[in-house]
């Protein structure tokens, strides 16, 4: 696979290499549905965010970055583990976790994926093996640990993490990468390089716009791609996941993409002027859904009416998710201290006898200390 960079993508103009020839209708429909479902979700949440101040937590929307999660959603097994950070809605849905549990979590309700304890940026769904958190770069190191466990147990499960390019600035990323390489862990890293960490451009923070090259030097297989092409994303992810699943070792995929919305919250942050207007325009003109629809139209597949049907179905799901969230109770009377920590040790309780106090001899001499 050729190595590309953000700069190279800009130079080569509007993307024209999306190829849908030979793909099954199921796949095309799946990719389309996944992208639109995520987009509609985010748009609906953005609209509802302020209406009655019901979503009282920081939310990092992901408009423009739908291609990768949509592709991923078609490739994961239920028993694979997926981790992500603050920008997690796409990954949550990709892991087939229910939209209602997502919305209810944002609304802080008991029926939320975490009973309203976590909110958007920290949402998890253990039953679906989906986990996220708002501290960079925990997703990456936790995933390495799960990959370690899968390998240890001889499972053919894969651990994955989806994250932004800034997460690679924390040293723990390089620790995890190095370790995964040494141990050939079944680990897939999915980096959505959207050029920015909040309002800071990648080139101010990293040696170059070629993260994959640095990763490759660690003996890890890398894939570098234009990130708004769902078909290319699908194919690369499939290859990487299979490679890791079969014991080939870790893979790192770098998807060059762009966040259209603000870093956080529903209002635009472009008044800060941290991104050139023509850059924003370029990426708007490379909207992954629009690119895909164009190709579909060109090939005469999945026509407007079929697509409208899909959208209608999604919108109904979204309505239901809002209703579910709004009709769910707020948590009350939670014993936070008990929820924070447990002293249960069920296995020990079952198998080991209690022994309360030994018989310590206070007259014995104190330790002789070794030099180290």
């Amino acid at each position, binding site marked *: 696979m050729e190595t590309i960079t953000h700069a190279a993508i800009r130079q080569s103009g509007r993307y024209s290499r999306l190829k849908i020839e030979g793909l099954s209708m199921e796949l095309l429909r799946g990719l389309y549905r996944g992208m639109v479902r995520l987009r509609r979700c985010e748009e609906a949440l953005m609209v509802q965010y302020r209406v009655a101040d019901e979503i009282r937590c920081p939310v990092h929307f992901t408009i423009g970055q739908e291609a990768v999660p949509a592709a991923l959603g078609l490739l994961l097994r239920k028993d694979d583990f997926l981790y992500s950070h603050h920008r997690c809605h796409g990954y949550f849905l990709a892991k087939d976790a229910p939209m209602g549990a997502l919305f209810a979590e944002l609304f802080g309700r008991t029926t939320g994926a975490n009973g309203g304890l976590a909110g958007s940026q920290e949402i998890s769904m253990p039953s679906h093996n989906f986990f996220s958190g708002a501290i960079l770069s925990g997703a990456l190191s936790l995933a390495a640990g799960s990959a370690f*466990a899968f390998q240890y147990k001889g499972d053919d499960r894969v651990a994955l993490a989806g994250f932004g390019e800034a997460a690679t600035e924390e040293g723990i990323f390089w*620790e995890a990468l190095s370790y995964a390489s040494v141990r050939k862990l079944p680990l897939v890293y999915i980096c959505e390089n959207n050029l920015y960490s909040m309002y800071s451009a990648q080139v101010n923070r990293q040696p170059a716009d070629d993260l994959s090259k640095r990763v490759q030097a660690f003996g890890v297989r890398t894939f570098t791609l234009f990130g708004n092409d769902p078909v290319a994303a699908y194919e690369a992810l499939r290859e990487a996941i299979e490679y890791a699943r079969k014991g080939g070792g870790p893979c790192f995929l770098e998807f060059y993409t762009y966040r259209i919305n603000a870093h956080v919250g529903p209002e635009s942050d472009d008044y800060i002027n941290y991104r050139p207007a023509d850059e924003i325009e370029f990426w708007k003109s490379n909207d992954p859904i629009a690119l895909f629809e164009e190709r579909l139209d060109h090939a005469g597949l999945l026509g407007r009416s079929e697509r409208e049907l899909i959208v209608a179905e999604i919108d109904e799901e979204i309505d239901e998710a809002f209703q579910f969230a709004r009709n769910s109770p707020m948590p009350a009377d939670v014993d936070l201290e008990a*929820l924070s920590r447990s002293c249960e040790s069920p296995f020990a309780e079952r198998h080991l006898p209690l022994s309360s106090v030994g018989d310590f001899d206070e007259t014995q001499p104190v330790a002789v200390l070794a030099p180290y």
Partner: protein
Amino acid sequence: MRTLTYAQAVNEALAQALELSEDVVVLGQLVDTSGVFGTTKGLVEKFGKKRVQDFPVSENLMTSAGMGAALAGMRPVLVHHRLDFMVYAMDPIVNWLSLWRLKSNGQSRLPVTIRTVVGKGWGQGPQHSKSLHGWFAHLPGVNVAVPATAHDAKGLLLESIFGETPTIILENRSLFSMEEVVPENPYRIPFGQAAIRRRGQHVTVAALGIMVPIALRVAKQLAEESIEVEVLDLRTVSPLDRDTVLKSVAKTKRLVVADPAWRSVSVAAEVIAFVSEKLGRDLASNPTRVCFPDSHTPMSAPLEASFYPDDAAMLSAIRSVL
């Protein structure tokens, strides 16, 4: 009645845990070759490199990888030769392990055991001698043990490995050679239960870790003067067995807290605080504490010796509340 050293007791607990469940794995720098002061000796020979694994010098990764492994059903035991090295792992401890139970709404179980050795003596110096049990006791969501004896080191370690909560066990290396009668079979000691190591009615000494042997020696000495000291070994600082302390102080009306840590904002402060909140007005004298100064550990032998409270310091603290 078999005696083991503290290090042997820890070693036996690890071996038995590895025996009891395939989910248990011991990870840490040199756990295969250095023996970690005898505590991991022979384990790799018996259980192989898969169960007892050396780890790169990446304490941060080790800890969060341990959590990722626990989420996938394992029970990792992470080992640090010094607590100081583990400070690199504060992010996974504070931002992930400790808050995960709450944030998952109680859905996730995280049986991660972190064993860490606290350096003392022979010029360990400021970078090899910290004991941050006070920090961990402040942090919600983790269990924290500071076992003082071989018997407790074994029972608390097994309890932790087969528990559900991230646990940090601090072992002071100056205790490793001390002996005690230790049952051969695996057994458990629940967290949150102080041990009453000596009964007495005149004064309560609530001690922790390396302060326990000192407290017992001094108590024995004072018994000759018919001063009966009740020595409590707190054993775990999270949870803290407040009831046992309160019951004892309600009886003796005098309190000394002996905590092997910097004085300010320490577990010793917490013990004095909760006793004062409940029983302050009932005390016969103002409580006091025996701690390290609010200073890092100096290297030079005479300074190091003066840094750590000794029998004399304990004695004078007890006398001050009588």
